Each structure stands twice: as C-alpha cells, then as structure tokens.
C-alpha cells in the first residue's frame, strides 16, 4: 500500500469510529419502552421529558414551537404528547446545540410535518450548529442528514422572534458546551431553555472537539442567572428547563454554577502549582460533588484541557 493511502485510512477510521459510537449510544436505547411525560411549566410553555434531552414545547394560537427534538425514533411519541396540548401546526424548531439527542428528531419532524409553502417549518440554530452538522471530519453524531438541517442561522450574539403572543430571544453562549449553544428565553412565559449548558443531574459536558470550554459554561450559567428573576425568597418567577433533568429555578442554576466555578478554581490552582492532570485528579477536586453528579474524572479532564488550551 502506498504511503498516501495509509495516511487516509487512519482519519477515515476515526470518523467511522466516532460516528459509530454516537450511533451505538442511540442504539442502546430501547425507544419502544421510552415514556414521554409532559409537565406544564408556565404561560405557554411545557416541558417534555423522555430518553434524550428535554424538549420545550410552546403552544398558542399561531401553532407549536419546539426547542430541541430528542431522537428521531421518539418523534411519534413526542408529537402524540404535543397533540394533547395543541392541534396547531408545527412552525418552529429551535436547536440549542448540535448533539444528536437534541437534533435527532429534526429529520423525522420535517418529513412528517405537512408542507405549508406560505409558512414553512423553520429550524433555527446558531450558525455553528449548521457548520458542525455539515462538517463530517469531527462529527461524532450520526452522519448528518440532508433533511432537518437548520434553515435559519444566526451569527450575532442574539436573535429574537415573536410567536404565540410572546417575544422569544436566543442568546448565543460562545464556546461553552459546544461553540453553537443557544439560551432560549420565552419572555412573557418567563421560561428559559438552556440546552446542555445546564444539566442539574450530572456534571456539564464540555465538547472540546466542537469548541466547548469551561469558561464558556461558567459564562453561560452566569448569563442564565442574570436573565432569571425569582418571584419571592429565591423561588418561583423564572423557570428553567435544562437540557436533561428536572425543571429548575434560578437557585438551582446558582448551585450548579457554584459547583462548576469551584471545581474550575481547584483545577486552576493545581495547574498554577505545576501539577499534571493525573496529579490533579488524584487530589480529588470533585470529591464533594461526585456523590451528587457522578464520577468526576471526565469533567476534571475537560476542565483541565479547557484551562490549558492554547488560545
């Protein structure tokens, strides 16, 4: 075999391997046994809980808007629950970021939504989501479909729209969970969808390969805290739908932000003292959080790499 062909084989194998692992994760889920649950949140907004990420559903006179779409095989169950809330047409999908458990249902939804040429289904995401979905080299998700890609991308810090009687604002959170994250704020309903910027039951995932960084996560969490306003005694008021996990309020985000910040500070301190990653892991900087969020090694590693990445 020539040298040039050998050098092709290795990266191709990586791409296939990475794509396979994402497929494998999806394939591990028995979708037939997944139950979807709807939780009314506030105003026009509901939360749908299933196997992948949470889905935010906003309904009203103009139709239905979804934030994130879980996995493709779950679309019939998702729409069955949506139809209990509204018979209106699906008008918008907003994808908070590129991962398969948040965009996986796009294709099926596009295929099953009746075509309306006067107001076609609009899929909104930060432009980096589209870039990642259409760039095969580094993708870990199922090779991107050609159907269900974002149709409206934004590249400025914010994008807004008005639907079902309320303003909806998308705030880009740069280089956080990925480089294409959006915080979605339903202004009148007073609900925020965070995607995987905030996952109260586990450590934050930091997809370094797709531009994620712990600094961006902390910045995004602080932004969410800034937007949210509790009603009384740090409770009620703005509700927050996380990427995974239970419905939350500002105080829950504060608790989570504190954790990420403190672990970051501890890892930073270790780096300042010249410690290696293994030495920092051995010092157990997540000891007081592991019993709550799970094993911390991957998180520590991602924080370390975030802090030592060349800018």
């Amino acid at each position: 075999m020539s040298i040039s062909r050998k050098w092709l084989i290795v990266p191709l194998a990586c791409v296939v391997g990475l794509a396979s692992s994402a497929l494998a994760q999806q394939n591990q889920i028995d979708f037939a046994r997944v139950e979807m649950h709807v939780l009314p949140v506030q105003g026009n907004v509901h939360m749908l809980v299933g196997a992948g990420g949470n889905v935010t559903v906003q309904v009203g006179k103009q139709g239905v808007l979804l934030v994130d779409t879980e996995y493709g095989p779950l679309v019939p169950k998702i729409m069955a629950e949506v139809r209990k809330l509204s018979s209106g047409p699906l008008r918008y999908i907003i994808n908070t970021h590129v991962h398969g458990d948040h965009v996986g249902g796009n294709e099926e939804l596009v295929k099953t939504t009746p075509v309306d040429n006067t107001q076609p289904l609009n899929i909104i995401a930060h432009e980096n989501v589209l870039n990642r979905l259409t760039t095969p080299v580094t993708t870990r998700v199922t090779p991107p479909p050609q159907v269900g890609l974002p149709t409206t991308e934004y590249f400025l810090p914010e994008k807004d729209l008005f639907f079902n009687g309320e303003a909806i604002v998308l705030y880009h959170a740069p280089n956080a969970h990925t480089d294409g994250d959006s915080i979605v704020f339903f202004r009148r309903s007073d609900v925020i969808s965070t995607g995987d910027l905030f996952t109260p039951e586990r450590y934050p995932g930091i997809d370094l390969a797709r531009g994620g960084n712990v600094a961006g996560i902390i910045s995004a969490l602080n932004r969410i805290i800034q937007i949210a306003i509790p009603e009384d005694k740090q409770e009620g008021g703005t509700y927050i739908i996380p990427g995974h996990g239970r419905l939350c309020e500002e105080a829950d985000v504060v608790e989570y932000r504190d954790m990420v910040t403190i672990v970051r500070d501890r890892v930073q301190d270790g780096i300042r003292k010249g410690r290696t990653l293994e030495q920092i892991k051995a010092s157990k900087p997540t000891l007081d959080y592991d019993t709550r969020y799970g094993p911390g090694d991957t998180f520590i590693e991602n924080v370390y790499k975030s802090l030592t990445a060349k800018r």
Partner: protein
Amino acid sequence: MSSRWIPCVLACAVLLTAGMPAYAQVDFSGQWESLYHEDGPERLPGPELGDYLGLPINDAARLRGDSYDADRISVVQEYQCRPHGGDYSMHGLSTLRVWREMDPATQKLIAFRTHTQFMGMERTVWMDGRPHPPEYAAHTWSGFSTGRWEGNTLVVTTTHFKPNYMRRNGLSRSDHAVVTEWFRLHGNYLSVTQMVDDPVFLAEPLVRSSNWVRDPGQRMNPAFCEPAPEVPKEMGTVTHHLPGTNEFLTEVADWYGLPRAATRGGPQTMYPEYRKTMGKPEKAPPLTCERFCVCTSLGDCQLRDRR
C-alpha cells in the same frame, strides 16, 4: 328495632370495641414558640465554623463544609434571601404557626400548613392521599410533604427539596434527601423528631428532635427580603476556600477544648463508645466558660456573658 334490644346492642358494641384502640386525629394548629433548650448556640447565633460534631456526614459533606465561605451570602446576591429549607427550618430559628385546611363540604382535613418566622418559610403537609410529584418536577425550599396518621402521631414524608443547610456553617443537605418527621402533641408541647436520609452527604440517617411550647399570644413579623449588592465583586464570583486552606476549621476544637478529630463529624461520633476513642484535645478546655455560656432565646444568647 325494639327499644329493649338497643342497650344490648350498644353494650356489645362497647365491649367489642373497648379492647381496640381507636385513634382520633390530633390538631396541631396554633402558635408555637420554639424552645432552644438543646443546641441553643448552634441554632440561635449559629454554629461555629468547622463544627461537625455528632453529624453522620461523609467525606463529600466534610469537604463541602470545609470549602464554605460565609461571605458567599453577601457577595452572591442570590443567596441573600434564601430561606432555610423546610427541614432545617424545624431545627434552626423555628418560631412556628400551624393551621389546618379543611374541605368546606366534607370537613375532611386536606392539609396542615406551617409558617416559620425566619424568612417566612411555609410548608404544606398534604393529608388527602395525593402522590408525590414525579422526579422531574421542580424542587422547592419547603419540599413536597404528605402526611399520614400512626395513632395520634403525624408522620410526614418530604421529598423534592432544593439543596439547603444541614447545619448553617456550610454543611449541605442535598436535593436527593428524603425527610421523615414524626409530629406529636404532649399537652402544651409540640415535639417533632426528624430523620434526614441523604445519600449524597450522609453516611447514616441524621435524627434530631425539636420542641415547641404553645404560645397563643405569639405574633410573627412579616418577612421581607430584597437582595442588593453589598460588596463590589466581579459578576460570577463564588467565594470559597480551596481544599486545605481554610484556617478557621480548628477554632471550634480549640475554643471548647475538644479533640479536633471529633469536630470533623462522621457517624462514629454519634455513638457513646466514641468517648473512649476520640482521644485528647490538642488544646485543653478553658477553666471556665468563655463563649455563649447562657443561651436559651434570642434575647439572652450573647457571645460574652454580661453578668
């Protein structure tokens, strides 16, 4: 039925039922003054830093407490108006009012409601058999409580707490905790035994009991709180001590002449036999009391005795 059969029927009914306990529900309604006759200094002015005595905490809880910087309450505005959790509010500053919510049509008890003076924490104990919410529902400071009767004891089970204090020197009780409480009336005294089962921070369940005395003349002030910037700090600052850097942790042991290991808590410190193994204090206790020597109420609990 002929009237001459009535006495026989009634007598038989009494004879049959006299051996069976028949329980009436108890009404806990009223104003209750908290009795700080146990752990007065900890519950009133607040616990000393590093005091984990007698708490069955695990390593995670210990590091969480060691890292805690009380400055966070003023620096991080979102902490300023936090109430105590529904469980801690029964142990901390806990002046209490209890009332019942009755179904107007059936006069059946729907719920007990409580209001605690500090930060106006309110709890609802549902007595109508409703289930607890699903795990993906929002959590609150007061949690979600349901009650049932065991004899004339009200047994309350609470889930869905937000994270809050186990002891308000940084020891945390997680949002995965389940709290069971037994409410009893003994004359004019209300006693509540509480068991906190927290898989995140406790090696064994934490059991504590608190008491109140009925005080019909008690009045509570409204609890207002509005967060405001107190200390100029960069947005997102979270004050904490890096591991191994908190120099205040040994104060409680040295002030009171206790073995430092004992102040680190852990399940072994709860048991009588620990007295044989805890060792000697690194610093001998003072000859006479120097801190919080008299402390039974907010009015008489001072750091230095003023007699």
